[in-house]
């Protein structure tokens, strides 16, 4: 990475952090590029060098968070000894991501999507990438063509709505969050490994090598 790229990368990270903090106290309409620059300790021109418009800034920061989440999910997935363990690890990693910084989660799950069409389009693309995590479950079947990719889309949609609803109701932290993960694992495993395996998921803890979520 060149010094110029490194500086831009550093600026982008500072802008992201500043924007998440600003969005906790201000609406999308209230926030201006000047406010973002001031909160990030940058000049407005430095913010504009990273993002041409406020809309792109919100969508870009959302995209950075999405990339980080997806990267963490895949790291967890590939470390599993099999699909189920990998997916269980990814589910607990996702829980950690959404509980470690509630302001960031609110920004990611609620604020930006309510205000920014660009971010919503990117959310739908993230969704398409994350579907792969679930769709790998077809390899568990004798005939992988017995289920279509649509099934994985429905499973991921169910998980996404469960996360949203649990976040909105303050049920992601602590035991409620762990219970939600187990229920999501039941939903994910059921079509690919059957009822007995799905029921096992209601009792299984996170793989030992997954860091526990931040305390509530």
């Amino acid at each position, binding site marked *: 990475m060149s010094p110029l790229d490194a500086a831009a990368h550093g600026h982008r990270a500072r802008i992201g952090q500043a924007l998440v903090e600003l969005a906790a106290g201000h609406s999308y309409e209230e926030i201006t590029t000047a406010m973002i620059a001031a909160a990030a300790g940058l000049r407005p021109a430095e913010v504009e060098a990273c993002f041409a418009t406020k809309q792109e800034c919100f969508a870009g920061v959302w995209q950075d968070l999405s990339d980080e989440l997806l990267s963490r999910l895949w790291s967890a997935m590939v470390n599993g000894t099999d699909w189920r363990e990998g997916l269980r690890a990814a589910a607990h990693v996702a829980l950690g991501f959404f509980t470690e910084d509630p302001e960031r989660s609110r920004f990611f799950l609620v604020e930006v999507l309510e205000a920014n069409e660009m971010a919503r389009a990117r959310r739908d693309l993230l969704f398409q990438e994350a579907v792969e995590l679930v769709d790998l479950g077809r390899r568990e079947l004798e005939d992988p063509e017995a289920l279509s990719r649509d099934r994985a889309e429905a499973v991921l949609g169910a998980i996404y709505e469960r996360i949203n609803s649990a976040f909105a109701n303050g049920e992601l932290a602590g035991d409620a969050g762990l219970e939600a993960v187990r229920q999501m694992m039941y939903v994910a495993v059921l079509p690919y490994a059957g009822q007995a395996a799905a*029921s096992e998921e209601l009792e299984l803890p996170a793989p030992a090598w997954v860091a526990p979520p931040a305390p509530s």
Partner: protein
Amino acid sequence: MVSLPDHLMPIEVGRERLPREELSAKQRERILPAAIEVFAKRGYPATTVDHIVAATGSGVGRFYELFDGKDGCFLAAYDRILAQARSQLEEAVPPDGDWPQQVIAAIRALLEFVSAHPMEAKLALIEAPTAGAVARGRYDALLEAAAAKLEEGRECASSQAPPPPGLGYAVAAGLAWLIHNRLSFDEAERIEALLPEAIEIALGPYLGEPEARSLAAAA
């Protein structure tokens, strides 16, 4: 013959003047179809009252007399769509049918509705969840209502281990997202083809995959 668009046609009030409330209700009904299209095409965040007024020709002042701003118009549109869909579903679902047949009929009617009314479906399934807390609440209530119907399947559940709580909500949300994705990527023509998969998704957790698959094939 060229005629005026619906929203510009004079309202037939007959010899007697309509009561103001009734007139307002009629005007709201005339504006909502155009508003639905604007919300669905532009997306909720990017839609402004000016866009709706421009599409409906209602005039800004009159718009605010009829609706409590953009949010009020959105919610009225959402409620109108839901009433339409509910009526279609109620007509399609046999009241004395068994649970699987009722679910299959409801899914078929839902997919037909979405396929015939993609703009309405976009508003209800794509825009509503991110259109503020009130709209989100109504979307959640819709999922909960679908979940309650699906949860009746517990009585038909084939397995010894009861499914976990919240399964009906998960199934309803999964189906909603399946449709959401088709609409998001402008694949409305593929909506009705989802029928067998949607039936398996809805029935499988309760009846088991083999029975669900056989019912889906028969449907």
